[in-house]
């Protein structure tokens, strides 16, 4: 039986073994989600060798200027149209902890892909372009975050370079969108003015946006928390299958909420029959020593 997974309380920032925070980037088409992620990966020196050269070549082949978005938008069709079609997940780490960054498409045609990506997230970054302001998917994506139970939201007001880094423009978008979130019983932890293309307030503090004294995007990310398993709720165990070994019946499945132990009385739905847990089975491979002497093979 597999259990829910409450994360370890203390995360070891030095180790790639710690539980990652899953964060999804959502918002209206073209507002700069993929560029923002590409920028984060680039500015934190997280891209594999040769990646930037590959992106440069792809941009040249398409006759475009350099696009950080191509780090994520790897499909030929995505690059030709400069649009994200499907969601991507990419591991990433800061000094503080591990992340899985999820890029979601903003085009309304690909809403199912946005939901696919967002459904796995602990937190969301909602991106709004300063020049275009709040648009249809800026709102719809927030609705969906609410529906998916994602409560930790940061709003990035991107493309501030196209709005002269104007405090007034930022303030307009912030107050309009704040009010909208209140209607959904949502609240953003921060509104961050940034420029993904210029790298302002992404991984390092912007001098062009000196009027802002809140966190950069990277700092704000590090303040988010991994979603906790609901161990204090009543047990809900989804049965996947029943394995029969002679007289024994093993109910295979996963705990969604709550906990269980031997002796607990369970009610099975929809039949409403009850039964008691006789044992909790978990198969562990017998140790076989490593490297196994039988498979010591000659060298290459």
């Amino acid at each position: 039986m597999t259990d829910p997974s409450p994360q370890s309380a203390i995360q070891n920032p030095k180790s790639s073994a710690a539980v990652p925070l899953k964060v999804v980037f959502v918002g209206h088409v073209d507002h700069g989600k993929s560029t923002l992620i590409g920028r984060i990966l680039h500015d934190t020196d997280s891209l594999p060798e040769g990646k930037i050269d590959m992106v440069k070549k792809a941009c040249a082949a398409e006759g475009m200027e350099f696009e950080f978005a191509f780090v994520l938008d790897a499909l030929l069709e995505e690059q030709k149209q400069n649009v994200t079609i499907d969601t991507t997940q990419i591991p990433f780490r800061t000094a503080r902890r591990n992340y899985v960054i999820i890029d979601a498409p903003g085009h309304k045609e690909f809403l199912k892909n946005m939901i696919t990506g967002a459904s796995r997230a602990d937190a969301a970054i909602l991106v709004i372009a300063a020049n275009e302001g709040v648009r249809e998917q800026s709102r719809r994506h927030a609705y969906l975050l609410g529906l998916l139970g994602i409560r930790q939201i940061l709003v990035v007001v991107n493309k501030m370079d196209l709005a002269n880094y104007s405090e007034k423009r930022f303030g307009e978008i912030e107050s309009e969108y704040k009010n909208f979130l209140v209607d959904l019983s949502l609240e953003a932890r921060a509104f961050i003015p940034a420029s993904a293309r210029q790298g302002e307030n992404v991984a390092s503090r912007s001098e062009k946006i000196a009027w802002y004294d809140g966190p950069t995007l990277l700092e704000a990310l590090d303040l988010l928390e991994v979603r906790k398993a609901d161990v204090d709720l009543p047990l809900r165990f989804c049965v996947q299958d029943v394995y029969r070994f002679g007289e024994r019946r093993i109910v295979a499945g996963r705990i969604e909420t709550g906990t269980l132990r031997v002796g607990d009385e369970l009610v099975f739905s929809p039949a409403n029959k009850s039964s008691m847990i006789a044992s909790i089975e978990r198969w562990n491979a017998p140790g076989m020593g490593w490297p196994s002497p039988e498979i010591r093979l000659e060298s290459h």
Partner: protein
Amino acid sequence: MTSTTRTHLDQLENQSIFIFREAYHAFENIAMPWSMGKDSNVLIWLARKSFFGKVPFPVLHIDTTYEFPEMLKFREWATKHYNLNLIVKINTDARERGIGYETHDPVTVTHELKTVALQQVLAEYKWDALITGIRRDEDPTRAKERYFSARNVQFEWDYKDQPPEFWEQFVTSAAKGEHVRVQPLLDWTEVDIWRYIQRENIPIPQMYFAINGKRFLSLGCSPITQPIKSTAATIEEIIAELEATKTTERAGRAQDHHERNAMQKLRAKGFL
């Protein structure tokens, strides 16, 4: 209320086992491709954990005839040791037509000896699901994959119109002649795989460990898979090396870099 602390590896293992069991419950006729590489061996390990010690479906080795001899020895050992129902498939027709790395480009050869071979054996056994060991961090097209991903009769992957996948609702049926790829390792990274191999003592071929200053990151066909410079001779050293390096795992695989978007083209046509 007490709660046990689950590590990241526990979470990954749980999710993979969950997917194995969903697949086993949903599909009639499953097979699991097995390359004897590290991910493949983790897959076998997880299958045994899911089904109480035994792998309840056949494992399939697509033998390109360009296999490293060490890998074939490992195949023999592991088949016996795990009591596997092993099926070996070679695209003999293509070999007889003279398709090979000596004369053809790696994309063509890989397609013929791996993808077409897989098509042939699938037509023969009529599997409706294949359990694969691909991971999102291997390449950018795999980063867009689903846990359950359909392939049509021609084996094509409709990557431009993938199904929604959330709240653990999966594509669990295939039309006649089509099949579903079930991908339990999607969330794992290369380092996760190594940590798990270390934690669980999973046997793997020795070629991953450095000898004379070289080791393999990923094992494909012998003519087109190059070792990297490395002194990492233990799992600890490999993990330390991975945490410090910026070289990608598949950097030593020629077919991935043959042309722009080479991997997308291969995978759209059915490559794992």
